[in-house]
């Protein structure tokens, strides 16, 4: 097939906060021939629909809404004259860094890139992944889909709402639906704790008297064409519904807020090794994947709570890609890290033998730990340690190891958490 072909030094897939920050940083590091591809009609990613405030405290020292935060980076992209294409969906990527995208205005286009930054973000777990029975009727949405309907399209999904899962998107939508005139009857959480921020529980549920039911789940769904109600029940320690605890709630809408998964079909196509722990690419401390010249950042790498950290991580990916393009040798051998006690979704997951700078490890605590100690060990030697008053799965934790500590040690590296008492 005779396809139009473009040649760029750096291709950035995804125009959300990660792609935008990566592009700016790469441009500032001297990369001039670059291109951002975004499948939606506008830049900004998921932030376009996050109209609530709470973004940017770290980056701009002020509290912005999602669209405002995105607008600052979009303005920067435009100032720097960085080329981008919206309505351009990347449909394939090869290990040789050849991408193909489909665009309404250009048709099918191939891009040969010197380096690629994967910044595709994540998507919500669909209801099929839930094992909830009988859900062919209308009225069941992921919380993010409902957010898009209400905030971007001005349509209301329904009037009487139950929310399954207490992730932040669900909490934010409980308030938004209430503001838009709906009645939110309950937020049902199967775990004994919420993965959402305390602030969101207080300001999105408690403020409006919306009950948050822990150790509860939806066990049945009623209605033929349109949802008419759900049955909820308490669960035991093994997450099995306890007979006799069922209650029926009449509602016309069920929102699912049960977690996010990085969107990595393209990464897999390009031969990028994916981590079962994060769902994202396995990267080293330079955000490089196992495929030379392919980097990854933002929610496609691991699900972040704060967009500020996405921007910071993405800027680093931009710099690293620029260094790769300027011909700097990439790290040779890489050593795997071990996610020790209490640590899951560790990023980076591998390390070059001789890191060239301090390395910050990010992870999700497996449970709630009070008076915790986070430590990095290598061959019995402690490289870094940090105390934390509280760690919870809902908030990403981090620890930094100084560069010289790596030089003075050998062997396996482990990051772990333990409770040490007051």
């Amino acid at each position, binding site marked *: 097939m005779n396809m139009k072909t473009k040649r760029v030094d750096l291709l950035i897939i995804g125009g959300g906060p990660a792609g935008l920050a990566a592009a700016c940083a790469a441009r500032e590091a001297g990369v001039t021939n670059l291109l951002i591809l975004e499948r939606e009609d506008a830049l900004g990613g998921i932030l*376009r629909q996050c*109209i*609530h*405030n709470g973004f940017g405290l770290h980056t701009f020292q002020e*509290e*912005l*809404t999602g*669209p*405002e935060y995105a*607008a600052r980076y979009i303005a920067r992209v435009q100032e720097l004259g960085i080329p981008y294409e919206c309505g351009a969906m990347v449909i394939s990527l090869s290990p040789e860094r050849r991408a193909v995208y489909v665009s309404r205005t250009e048709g099918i286009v191939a891009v040969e890139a010197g380096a690629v930054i994967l910044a595709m973000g994540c998507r919500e777990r669909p209801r099929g992944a839930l094992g909830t029975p009988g859900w062919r009727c209308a009225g069941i949405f992921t919380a993010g889909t409902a957010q898009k309907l*209400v*905030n*971007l*399209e*001005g349509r209301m999904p329904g009037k009487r709402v139950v929310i399954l899962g207490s992730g932040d998107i669900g909490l934010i939508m409980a308030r938004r639906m209430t*503001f*838009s005139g709906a009645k939110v009857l309950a937020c049902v959480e199967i775990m004994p704790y919420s993965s959402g*921020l*305390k*602030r969101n*529980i*207080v*300001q999105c549920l*408690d*403020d409006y008297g919306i009950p948050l039911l822990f150790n509860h789940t939806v066990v049945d769904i009623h209605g033929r064409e349109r949802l008419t109600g759900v049955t909820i029940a308490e669960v035991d320690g093994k997450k099995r519904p306890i007979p006799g605890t069922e209650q029926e709630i009449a509602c016309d809408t069920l929102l699912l807020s049960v977690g996010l998964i990085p969107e990595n079909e393209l990464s897999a196509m390009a031969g990028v090794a994916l981590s079962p722990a994060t769902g994202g690419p396995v990267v080293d401390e330079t955000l490089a994947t196992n495929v030379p010249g392919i980097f990854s950042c933002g929610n496609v790498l691991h699900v972040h709570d704060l967009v500020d950290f996405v921007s910071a991580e993405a800027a680093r990916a931009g710099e690293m890609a620029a260094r790769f393009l300027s011909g700097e040798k990439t790290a040779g051998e890489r050593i795997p890290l071990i996610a020790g006690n209490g640590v899951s979704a560790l990023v980076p997951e591998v390390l070059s033998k001789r890191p060239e700078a301090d390395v910050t490890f990010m992870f999700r605590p497996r449970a709630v730990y009070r008076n915790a100690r986070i430590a990095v060990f290598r061959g019995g030697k402690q490289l870094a340690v940090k105390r934390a*008053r*509280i*760690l*919870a799965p*809902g*908030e990403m934790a981090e620890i930094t190891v100084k560069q010289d500590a790596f030089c003075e040690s050998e062997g396996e590296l482990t990051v772990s958490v333990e409770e040490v008492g007051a």
Partner: protein
Amino acid sequence: MKRELTCIGCPMGCRLTAEFNGTEVTEVTGNGCAVGARYAREELTNPKRMVTALVRVVGMERPLSVKTEAPIEKRLVFDCLAALGAVAVAPPVRIGDVILENVLGTGVNVVATEDIGG
């Protein structure tokens, strides 16, 4: 009177118990640090919230996102939403444009948080 609340100052989420006589908080317990005591005082005597909302755009299906420039009294949140429900703006609109001045006499303006049109 005893009042229970959850501190949002950090992920500890301390359960606070405050002694509140209707005008003043005289005692706070359960707080892990000073932030909790301050939070309980403010939350009970003068609770405020930022309001982010949507307003209609003339000639368009999609709404415009807006926010209060500063937090307003919590008890006014729904009145503020109702006031915004009566607003329809004509594009083009730029980030920061005032959509509703001095909402409910609070001295706080409601401004656009995105660009629409032109």
